[in-house]
């Protein structure tokens, strides 16, 4: 191709034709280059739209689709006869969309004159408001009263962006009777949030905090559902997309508890601090389990007020403490039947062997005397009388002969010194005196004198009412230990048949000779029904034979200042206990009553147990099992 038209510019003659041809070439080259560039652009489009299509589709969906969780409905809790104990009831709450409210502080002020707004409400609202978008609806007040709903409805026009929203809230119709046992749900707080699976709890506001509500949280909660919503760039939901996974409601739980028996047991205490546990020895089902005093669990569901909480927390009789599983008691004489059985089972005594009680027992070669309850002693007593009259000397000498190792080994069969494993959180282990325990906790050897007083349930002994109830029902069931439990069956929705809750089969009995067991039973029958029994007269006018044992334990050492101070108030001096089962021949209910303060087990605790038996009788007569 020519590079120039002519070498000498002065001789130049414009060659129009050439110039046009030249232009044509350039135009074609330009067009080809442009076509190539656009083709390259097209290839880039193809790369994005075809090769990486799947990736970008996913990211586009990620942009626009927001998964919204739908909280499942919490399972209900019933007693063994279908009495509703924990319900989900419709309630109304006030919600505010900050974006739609023009002047929020002013609006809240005005709103406060229509519905009561506490500082707690406002604090929570403001905390939530900071964490959410302005177009999201934020709850302000829960559980509006009918009055408040009516008042708000008439003045609603004054409050743009404020609305009444229905929701389900937990309610405990028999609040106080089951406050400790069923416990309560509460708002998920920071500590809960760390433990819970964020996915399955997305959308759930409440979680079981105590009792059955906590222990069976997984069963009660159910499975979260989902719906997909299309959101815009501000995360504002625009529409609900068709694919939706419905939530699966939590399982309903049927307790082993009989609500009527529970009520009767709670009433029987007449407000005195203590606990009672009733177990069916045939299967370990807990029929009643009360801790007195109690509180209203409904207060906790939507956040208890600071004042209410402080009142409960600081009350001297500790209503929040579940005395059935965490109340520590000294068992006193209630351990005697178990020790007596150990004496005959281990071959240290025969039932007919007698011991002479003269009012005081001495370890051979030692000065110190261990007293009987009766001045001058009970005279010569065999096993039956030793239990019936609660003769200390018999058990001092038996424990001494047995020695601490065999003592703790034998008593361990009844489950003392460790949690029973009942389906509740926060159970105390108690203390079964043993060499190992003392070494671990006091770094000291076990002294013979401590073995002697362990024989009457004093010294290092600590039990909880549920532990003693387990020991008693094991004894009643002739040495077969059924783990105490609270759940009878679960149910997948109200129309499904209840499924029995799985239960571990018990181990075979550890008692070798049933004649030994019968001797102990005779002693416990005599304690209630014999002329010399410590709780004589308790079984009058009861159709079945009651077998039992009283316990009266020192609350304080006699040298304590406190003991001196309450000397004059006999009723405050002791922790008093009573254990009994009936019918004696074929036990169907075993009851333990523990009172934090009282005069004697027979005087204070036994009548409560009798009332429980009476209530139970009405139930079985009424056809309930």
């Amino acid at each position, binding site marked *: 191709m020519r*590079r*120039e*038209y002519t070498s000498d*510019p002065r001789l*130049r003659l*414009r060659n129009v034709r050439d*110039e*046009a041809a*030249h*232009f*044509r070439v*350039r*135009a074609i080259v*330009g*067009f080809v280059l*442009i*076509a190539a*560039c*656009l083709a390259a*652009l*097209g290839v*880039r*489009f*193809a790369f*994005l*739209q*075809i090769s*990486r*299509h799947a*990736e*970008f*589709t996913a*990211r*586009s969906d990620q*942009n*626009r689709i927001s998964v919204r969780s739908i909280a499942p409905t919490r399972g209900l809790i019933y007693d063994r006869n279908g009495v509703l104990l924990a319900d989900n009831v419709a309630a109304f709450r006030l919600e505010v969309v900050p974006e739609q409210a023009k002047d929020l502080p002013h609006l809240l002020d005005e709103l406060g004159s229509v519905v009561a707004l506490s500082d707690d409400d406002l604090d929570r609202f403001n905390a939530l408001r900071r964490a959410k978008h302005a177009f999201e609806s934020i709850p302000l007040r829960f559980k509006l009263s009918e009055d408040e709903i009516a008042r708000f409805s008439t003045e609603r026009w004054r409050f743009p962006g404020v609305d009444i929203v229905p929701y389900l809230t937990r309610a405990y119709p028999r609040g106080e009777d089951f406050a400790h046992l069923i416990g309560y749900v509460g708002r998920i707080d920071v500590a809960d949030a760390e433990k819970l699976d964020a996915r399955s709890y997305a959308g759930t506001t409440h979680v079981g905090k105590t009792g059955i509500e906590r222990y069976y949280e997984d069963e009660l909660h159910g499975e979260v559902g989902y719906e997909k919503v*299309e*959101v*815009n*760039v*501000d995360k504002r939901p*625009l529409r609900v997309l068709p694919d939706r996974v419905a939530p699966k409601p939590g399982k309903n739980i049927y307790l082993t508890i009989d609500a009527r028996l529970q009520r009767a047991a709670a009433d029987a205490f007449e407000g005195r601090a203590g606990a009672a546990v009733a177990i069916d020895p045939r299967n370990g089902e807990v029929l009643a389990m009360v801790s007195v005093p109690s509180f209203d669990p409904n207060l906790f569901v939507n956040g208890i007020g600071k004042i209410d909480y402080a009142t409960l927390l600081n009350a001297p009789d500790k209503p929040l403490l579940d005395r059935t599983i965490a109340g520590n008691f000294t068992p006193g004489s209630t351990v005697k039947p178990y020790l007596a059985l150990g004496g005959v089972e281990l071959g240290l005594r025969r039932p007919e062997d007698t011991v002479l009680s003269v009012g005081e027992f001495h370890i051979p070669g030692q000065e110190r005397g261990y007293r009987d309850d009766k001045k001058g002693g009970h005279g010569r007593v065999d096993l039956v009388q030793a239990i019936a009259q609660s003769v200390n000397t018999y058990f001092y000498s038996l424990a001494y002969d047995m020695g601490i190792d065999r003592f703790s080994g034998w008593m361990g069969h009844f489950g003392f010194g460790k949690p029973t494993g009942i389906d509740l959180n926060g159970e105390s282990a108690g203390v079964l005196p043993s060499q190992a325990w003392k070494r671990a906790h006091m770094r000291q050897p076990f002294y013979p004198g401590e073995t002697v007083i362990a024989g009457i349930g004093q010294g290092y002994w600590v039990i909880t009412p549920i532990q003693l109830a387990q020991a008693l029902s094991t004894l009643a069931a002739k040495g077969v230990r059924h783990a105490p439990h609270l759940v009878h069956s679960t149910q997948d929705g109200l129309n499904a048949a209840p499924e029995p809750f799985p239960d571990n089969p018990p181990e075979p009995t550890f008692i070798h000779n049933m004649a030994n067991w019968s001797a102990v039973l005779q002693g416990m029958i005599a304690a209630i029904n014999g002329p010399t029994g410590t709780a004589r007269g308790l079984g009058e006018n009861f159709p079945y034979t009651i077998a039992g044992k009283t316990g009266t334990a020192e609350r304080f050492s006699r040298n304590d200042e406190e003991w001196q101070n309450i000397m004059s108030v006999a009723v405050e001096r002791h922790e008093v206990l009573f254990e009994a089962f009936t019918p004696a021949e074929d036990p169907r209910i075993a009851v333990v009553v523990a009172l934090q303060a009282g005069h004697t087990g027979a005087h204070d605790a036994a009548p409560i147990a009798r009332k429980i038996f009476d209530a139970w009788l009405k139930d079985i007569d009424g056809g309930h099992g």
Partner: protein
Amino acid sequence: MNAQALPRLQAWLVRALREPRLDLPLLGALLLLATCGLMTLYSASDLDRHLVLNQTMRFLLGGALMLLISRVPPTMLRNWTPWLYGASVLLLIAVAVLGQGRGANRWLNLGIMRFQPSELVKLTLPMMVAWYLHARELPPRWLTLIAVAVLIAVPALLIAKQPDLGTAVLVIASGVFAIFLAGLAWWRIGILLVTAAGAAPLLWHFMHEYQRNRLRMFLDPESDPLGNGWHIIQSEIAVGSGGWLGKGWHHGTQSRLEFLPEHTTDFVFAVFSEEWGLLGVIALLALYLFIVGRGLMIAANARDTYSRLLAGSISMAFFVYVMVNGGMITGLLPVVGVPLPLISYGGTSAVSLLAGFGVLMSIHAHRKLMAR
């Protein structure tokens, strides 16, 4: 005043409208493109009739301007060229001194309407270069080249200073294309390209911080996905999720749900790609290529050097819009504010583009009577 002037002007206007001397293939392509643009805008604006009406008014205004200009003979245009160029550069200087606009001084308030002199330059600069080369010996030598470079650089620098990099690029491109079409020797082109590559770091030095950020983001958008990289990422997602056939008209979620910023203006191509897919994109690119090709054909048949160079550079500059915008929304090129011609919402670019096509029409109407 001449008493004859008014009736003559009237007669000319009537003729212009009654017997427009238009190139029908080009007109058809433009109509198709404008229709496609209005449809895309209607979807991208989430069915905002008001916005579509506005754009239609601009198309009508631009169309009228195109008809008028098509009746102006190229020789007359050529005679006016130095004045028009001088006036537009003066306006640019006026903008630099007393202009107004968000962040960038691009606008001149004329009372009745705001006016962007840089749009005018898009037309007057190729006219000026063509005018200058028309009187010179071709192909151009170094001296001619330097003179042309000065003609380009003065308005381009003024525009870049506003700052409006996109328009500056377009203005420079139209001048450069004129030189290319004037037959600049390949070896000279080679030397220029090498020099330009060497001067690139210098350009970085003169850039504004926001322009540098755009370039950084172009190189690695994921480094700041919520900040400066957001535009590129969301645009690529819109394009990529379109697939072969697209999500369908008004079913593009990226724009409807506002993930894609500026989805009616600079990023409208992403909306189009999302809704019409690769097939739609290819059709649209083919339409653009057709318009460029038709423009070059008109240029090749033009009567004189001035017309050839002007028509050629207007056509090729049109391609630059498409390339820069398409490259931007697919992450191939950095984010530069260049609209997609006749589809992006925005008045001045539509009007100036159509005015440019008016020039093409005029050149077509006054083509060589006997081709070859």
